[in-house]
């Protein structure tokens, strides 16, 4: 529940994603909870990045609660969104292959 620099917000201790609270530009070098990362693409305010490396099929935890499962392996600092995360509640929502942006 604290800021990692100015860019990332951890909402809960058990979360494996952080919220981007200041837009990140492609190629930008950032520190993410002590880890040095280079942004592979531009990520807008309000989106999520992985707090650590994640396997495909892993539960994503935000607010300390599951918000869905990963559909691909994700490296630390990578954007987590419709292209690699899908709902466990309405499985059809993720539309794999369509949603990546």
């Amino acid at each position, binding site marked *: *529940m*604290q800021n990692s620099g100015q860019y990332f917000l951890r909402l809960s201790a058990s979360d494996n994603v952080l919220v981007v609270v200041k837009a990140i530009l492609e190629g930008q070098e950032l520190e993410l909870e002590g880890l040095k990362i280079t942004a592979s693409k531009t990520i*807008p305010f*309000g989106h*999520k990045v992985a707090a650590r490396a994640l396997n495909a099929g892993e539960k994503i935890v935000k*607010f300390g609660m599951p*918000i869905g499962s990963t559909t691909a392996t994700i490296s630390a600092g990578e954007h987590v*969104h419709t292209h690699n995360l899908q*709902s466990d*509640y309405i499985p059809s929502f993720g539309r794999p292959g369509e949603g990546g942006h």
Partner: protein
Amino acid sequence: MQAYLRADGRKGIRNVIAVVYLVECAHHVAKQIAAPFEDNDVHVIGFSGCYPNTYALEMMESLCTHPNVGAVLLVSLGCESFNRNQLAETVRSSGRPVDVLVIQQTGGTRKTFEAGREWIRSTLVDLERVPRAEMGMHELIVGTVCGGSDGTSGISANPAVGNAFDRLVNLGATTIFEETGELIGCEQDMVRRAITPELGQEILSCMAKTANYYNILGHGSFAVGNAEGGLTTLEEKSLGAYAKAGHGALHGIIKPGDVPPNPGLYLLDVIPDGEVRFGFPNINDTAEIGELIACGSHVILFTTGRGSVVGSAISPVIKICGNPETYRRMSDDMDVNAGRILEGQGTIDEVGLEIVERIRLTAEGEKTASESLGHREFVLTYKSFEPIGPSCLPLALA
């Protein structure tokens, strides 16, 4: 905290005179009766419909005997169906001063203005004699609602209110959250937090009713704009609203007008029972605030991102702004700047603590931003409910 001790033993943090119109035709008269008393806590509430409705009568009975209310003036046109005699009797038996003005019997608009204002002048003097008593946190009820939300609400203001709710429950207070229509996807976590398996089952039925209601009304759940804002799944969106409920145990489900019998965290079921009728469950944020107050809320925590300005009749509204830019633009309307969490100027924990302190100050009489600005919104519409089932309040059975 020093509170107003009512004859029925409940304790309030404001000493409001409620001027109540019982049909829209009496609204203007009620408003003009209260108009000269803008600097006093003289608030206008009412029900517009001419046809009777059990929910509206019960809501009015709860609101007119709310601990923050000291006296009640009912303003009736005369021919509407509202049961003014029952409402007056309920207020009278609670030990509060009450009077009924029937415009058709009093002799029209002007005579009713005069009669109403005279009653208020003498009642304001009577209310100065209401005894004061020490009020503990175990006697305090706090409700929460969000409105004018944006992408910041779920990651700053709502988690900060959740943090405040956990603190309040730990201090022995009662907390209420609602908006079941925005909690779809959070069922399993609510079941996990329910203090009995039977309460868990009630939560599942309540959420199934909610999903059905919104499906029939054709209310969308997850929009393209949500994904653009960074939300990926429906459960993620719902968790942003659910964050207001904190992390503690869920002690029960109540319906509008039910006052929680023991301290703890409660879910307010705002979705009508039976077939879908009368339109949207709550037509705006003010309707939700009215229901939280009817459940005894002394104070309301209102989170906003885009910048709502509303307050409420009867109970003070504390506005918590999640968006730092909105806060700077509209700071006169806001009580707490939760947007600083996003700018690295504070943590969720620090803002949670600040909210609890703000509640304490408000309970001790300090005006909230919306109170200072004269906001006293109120709305009440048609609904219908069945009483809650026996498993909804496990501690009340013990």
